[in-house]
């Protein structure tokens, strides 16, 4: 083959390859336009919040309002949902506030955390260092916790780390808890590969979270003291905690098989007073920070089989009685607003 023929072949293949890419792109673009314009299966309103006891979540129903904050009445979680204008990747809500983590698409994506008031006005906003993962508001609404993944790049050889930070509703940055003192058996310790994630607040001064050591893969439950800036290790292998409304138990995800890419997490409940751990009857692997529907039932999100970007929220009895049931279709990041909180 002479040079001319070689370059002609390269040109032809380039045209076909890039042409195919363009066609795929245009089809996806048109498809997306059609999908977004398509009416969603749900009722929409112009506000994310309704009144009364409700579950607030990220709507993942294809069509209009995909990715937006939605809510359903606690009494009828499978019923029609109200979808608002706010788009969040991860959220937590009380009757007074909504913490919303989102990726902002751009030439380079950026990530932000925004706290909205009950009537939908932005109160606070700050940049996140990485991809949104978890957020929690304290029961009294004075504190916000966020966890984001700071993923490495080929030149950035840090590999991976989490950034778990706390803020007050007044806007004060309490910093990355990685810089606080870690107490193992009462002694200060500073293992280098520690990462923190999954804060759940006890009250306005203390919280639980997970510390993980990436070298060994071991995780511990820690109890954080905001005033003293300390974290004290408690039970081992209690990951991504969520405190029950009555404050007596912690629902979490427990590694039950595999490691690394093939890790399998099973929902479990840790009784704080007795230290007893019960695995719950869920055969699928879960990767979410559990939410309590009430003192007897837990909620978690699960990717929908065969539908990329779509998820469902499942409910499971916290005492291990009964199978998981589908509670809210096309939903993610549920947050339950109960009457005593609204009170």
């Amino acid at each position, binding site marked *: 083959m002479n040079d001319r023929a070689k370059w002609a072949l390269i040109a032809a293949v380039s045209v076909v*390859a890039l042409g195919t890419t363009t066609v795929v792109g245009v089809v*996806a673009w048109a498809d997306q336009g059609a999908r977004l314009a398509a009416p969603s299966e749900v009722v929409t309103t112009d506000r994310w919040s309704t009144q009364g006891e409700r579950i607030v979540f990220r709507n993942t129903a294809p069509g209009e309002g995909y990715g937006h904050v939605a809510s359903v009445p606690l009494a009828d979680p499978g019923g029609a949902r109200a979808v608002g204008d706010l788009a969040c990747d991860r959220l937590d809500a009380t009757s007074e506030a909504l913490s919303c983590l989102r990726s902002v698409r751009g*030439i380079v994506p950026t990530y932000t955390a925004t706290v909205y008031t009950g009537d939908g006005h932005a109160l606070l906003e700050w940049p996140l260092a990485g*991809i949104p993962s978890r957020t929690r508001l304290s029961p009294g609404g004075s504190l916000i916790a966020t966890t984001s993944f700071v993923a490495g790049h080929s030149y950035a050889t840090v590999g991976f780390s989490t950034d778990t930070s706390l803020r007050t509703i007044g806007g004060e940055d309490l910093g990355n808890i990685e810089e606080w003192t870690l107490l193992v058996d009462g002694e200060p310790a500073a293992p280098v590969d520690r990462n923190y994630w999954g804060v759940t607040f006890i009250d306005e001064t203390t919280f639980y979270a997970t510390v993980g050591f990436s070298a060994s893969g071991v995780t511990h439950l820690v109890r954080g003291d905001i005033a003293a800036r300390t974290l004290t290790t408690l039970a081992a292998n209690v990951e991504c905690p969520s405190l029950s409304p009555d404050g007596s138990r912690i629902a979490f995800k427990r590694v039950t098989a595999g490691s690394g890419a093939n890790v399998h997490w099973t929902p479990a409940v840790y009784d704080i007073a007795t230290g007893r751990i019960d695995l719950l009857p869920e055969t699928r692997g879960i990767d979410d920070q559990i939410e309590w529907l009430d003192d007897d039932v837990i909620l978690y999100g699960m990717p929908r089989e065969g539908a990329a970007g779509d998820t469902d929220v499942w409910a499971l009895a916290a005492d291990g009685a009964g199978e998981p049931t589908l509670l809210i279709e096309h939903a993610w990041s549920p947050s339950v607003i109960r009457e005593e909180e609204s009170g």
Partner: protein
Amino acid sequence: MYISLTNTPDEAEPDRQSAPRGARTVSSTVVTLGIVSLLTDISSESVAAILPLYITGVLGLSTIAFGVLDGLYQGVSAIVRIAGGYASDRLDQPKWVAFTGYALAAVARVGLLFASGFAAITAVVTADRIGKGIRTAPRDALITASSEPGSLGRAFGVHRMLDNIGAALGPLIAFVILLVVPEGFHIVFTASLAFALIGVLVLGLVVPNVRTRPAPGAVVRRHTRRPRFDWRRIWSGRMRRVLAAAGILGVLTIGDGFVYLVLQARSDFAAQWFPLLYVGTNVAFLAFAVPLGKLADRVGRGRVFVGGHLALLGAYVVAALAVEDLVATVMCLVFLGAFYAATDGVLAALAAEATTPQTRATGIAAAQTVVALSRFVSAAGFGVLWFAVGREPAMIVVAVLLAVAVPVAALVLRPLLSTTGRAVS
């Protein structure tokens, strides 16, 4: 038998089409290899940039497991790299060994189109890294064989510049696609496959099958007995000095990830633009690659390689000291880019100089592996230091150690400091 580098191009490249006469031009083969790298980098960096978003946003998984496995792949890549270099030397087929590496990465892209689970994504990423490990050293051996020894630094500079243009364009293309079609990850995967295919095709069709071994002609060579591979060339004599210097400096190269984290922790500007910092370093790298390569040809590759670490020292110092946010961030990126430009291609040129044509790809691979492994040790060590003494003090400790290591490395490399490829013994 030791053949001086000075004689290699004409002997080793009988089928070269445009001879790099004089030091003013760079061989068309080098430019073509640069274009292949540009296309391949667009392909791999576009996917790498969106992968964390894809895994968390679409697959709904946490990236924790992904991060844990990351280090393991780096190790695999280092071992494969030596194997790729050795295969290239033994078979005397650098082009086709490199081709295998590029092709493997391209085939892995096909898998991306159909992969839907995390395990599949992991397999694709692993195949991509193995491909990168295989191809790097044979490709650098090809660049050496296609260039005048006196302008090898410039040749690597041109190649690395093109390579980094691809690395800067890849994420840009990916993010623009996602900006227009927010859920269009499969478009990025398709584009990635398209660029990878074109790259492989250009390599296969256009790059001449340059043999690194000097021999009178291809026909005769086929009948000559294959000489024993001389491992002593890799770890004794001048190569030992190159490897030692690279290792000494490598253990104090903590990686720009940590520099970014230090900047991000204290600067609002850096925090807001965190995802863009590596692009800034890339741009500085591509801007400095050719000038510093030329400088290496003029004043000596050893000098530029060791001296380049002063730019790294500059980045450490600026990150550690309380300079104004914006100024500190920009200066750090410029210093890091200059550091990479003065060391990445220049080290390959240095290793090429210190080896024979028979051991060249293995030698280059060995030098790059030493750098990769020592930087891995460095990153781990710096992590310890970070938590032990705090962010800025840890940076200052490493800066002081590096300030000591630079003259030590210069001493180790002394016989090679001023070599420019023209006056080799």
